[in-house]
């Protein structure tokens, strides 16, 4: 008898297999999120918002009410829903371009206002769907379509440290963490805590997730894993940066 891997209950089976490229990390992030939603039993009151970029491919991923929005604008849409209906749980799902470049003002201000929403930002160090241009998170020396000779920090700056920024500007009750698709169990715990933080009404919740993009990195399986596990953590150390009441893991 063939035993199939178990899908999270909150996934929409009709849209599987999903539309992400082979080797893409989005499937793992969304699996971790699906498991967190299942464990918390919040499928019926969670609204999932996805940005433009690869994250928009998640518009029908879950059996959860979902809104696909514009470049960088998922955060304000989720803020708008939450302000109007505080009993709903809202999750804004975006990439590094949407969250750190075009939509950074929304991230900064939602964090500052301590809006009771959960933001999940997938960091794959590149603008993936747009064709592999430099992102705020592109690491020094990394080749992209707009840094064909490698990112020169003298010219274009250094990789953006999103969770460190959010931890610095957010207030009491905020939850801030950085996970990785390479550490699935830890990632799921972070996402679960981020939603629990919203359920408890404590404050803004933000999780950056280190993720893979073999298509735009032009890497094989081994190189992809090496970049995720060895190169990325040098610039983006995983772990919890801010936990209400302390005790970061």
């Amino acid at each position: 008898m063939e035993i199939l891997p178990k899908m999270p209950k909150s996934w929409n089976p009709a849209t599987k297999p999903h539309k992400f490229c082979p080797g893409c990390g989005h499937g793992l992030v969304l699996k971790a999120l699906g498991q967190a939603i299942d464990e918390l039993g919040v499928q019926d009151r969670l609204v999932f918002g996805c940005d433009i970029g690869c994250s928009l491919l998640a518009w029908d991923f879950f059996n959860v009410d979902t809104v696909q929005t514009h470049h960088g604008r998922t955060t304000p849409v989720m803020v708008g829903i939450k302000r109007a209906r505080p009993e709903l749980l809202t999750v804004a799902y975006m990439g590094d371009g949407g969250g750190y470049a075009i939509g950074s003002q929304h991230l900064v201000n939602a964090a500052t206002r301590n809006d009771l929403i959960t933001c999940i930002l997938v960091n794959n160090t590149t603008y993936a769907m747009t064709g592999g241009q430099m992102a705020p998170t592109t690491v020094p020396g990394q080749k992209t379509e707009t840094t064909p000779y490698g990112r020169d920090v003298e010219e274009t700056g250094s990789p953006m440290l999103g969770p460190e920024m959010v931890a610095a500007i957010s207030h009491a009750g905020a939850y801030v963490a950085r996970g990785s698709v390479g550490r699935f169990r830890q990632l799921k715990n972070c996402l679960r805590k981020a939603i629990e933080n919203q359920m408890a009404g404590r404050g803004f919740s933000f999780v950056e997730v280190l993720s893979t993009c073999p298509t735009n990195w032009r890497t094989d399986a081994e190189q992809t894993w090496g970049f995720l596990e060895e190169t990325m953590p040098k610039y983006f150390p995983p772990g919890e940066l801010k936990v209400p009441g302390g005790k970061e893991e």
Partner: protein
Amino acid sequence: MTGNEVVAWGALAAGAEIMYGYPITPQNEIMHYWTRLGPRFGKKFLQTEDELSAGFTTIGGVLAGKRAFTATAGPGNVLMQEPLSMAEAMRIPVVVVVQQRGGPSTATVIYSQQEVTLTCFGGNGEGLRLVYSTAFHQELFDYTVKAFNAAWKYRFPTFVLADGYQAKMRESLVIYDPAERGIEMVPSEPLVGKPGMPGTDRPPAHLRNAFSVEEELLAALGKDIEEYEAAAPEIVEADAFNAGEAGLLVVAHGIVFRSVAMAVRELVNQGERVGYFRPITLRPFPGAQLREAAQGAEQLLVVESAYGQLNKLVLENLYGSGVPVRTLFRPGVGITPEEVAEKCRALLAGKEG
């Protein structure tokens, strides 16, 4: 009271529940009054970081099922075209009050009619919006109430297009409960967060405005355009006076219409063959009504505080009628009844062509 205060009371009368806004002159007092009314009537407000956010949070409020609105002007209206394009494409009934100011961005904070094209057709789309152009404070109240009804009935972004003069000047009005006038408010309803387990008790809401192929977009847009065109005849509103008898028909909207109305009535009292036509909805445009009013007119005069934004709509809707169209354009500047009357007299005397 001032026009901005009227809008806040109008939104209250319409049952609006939450306003999302960002300060910009000359609409600020809408927020000021709304936030003062808030605690007394259990209304919510969020001051956002910019107009992009104000537009997108308003979308969120509407998705959540609330009568949500925002207000803006000038450069804020420019920024808001991005969320409004989304609202247009996804049929999200947001209500926006625009108090026009002169462009670009910092040109003047006071007054203009230069946001007609932007409000009717701005953004990346086809301009499937409802735009009511008000002229009096009573209309600011009436059409703010109406905007919430029309938005939720037709599910297109709906605008009350006024201006800096209307925003700031004081005029008397009658505040009323719509129910007492037999106005039944179209109920709002949530588009996300409905009761029940999505995927089990009900289909999940999967709202998107990105399509994989061109034909998919064409099909979605085709349906919206068809519904917009079908609803347009019952949405359009216009006002006309002495049109059938007029040798000269003057066309104006918004506050400029008030100068036109005064001038035309004075000229008619003096025995001149003049009339006026005022489009109240600029989108959809009352084209059939304009053509009917223009029938028999020897010439038209379009008067506006912009360089031909209303005129474009007039010409498009009059195409083929052959009536010569004259213009009095004062971009970003108010127009007095005396100026209109002078221009009319010159045209009637055959002095200007």
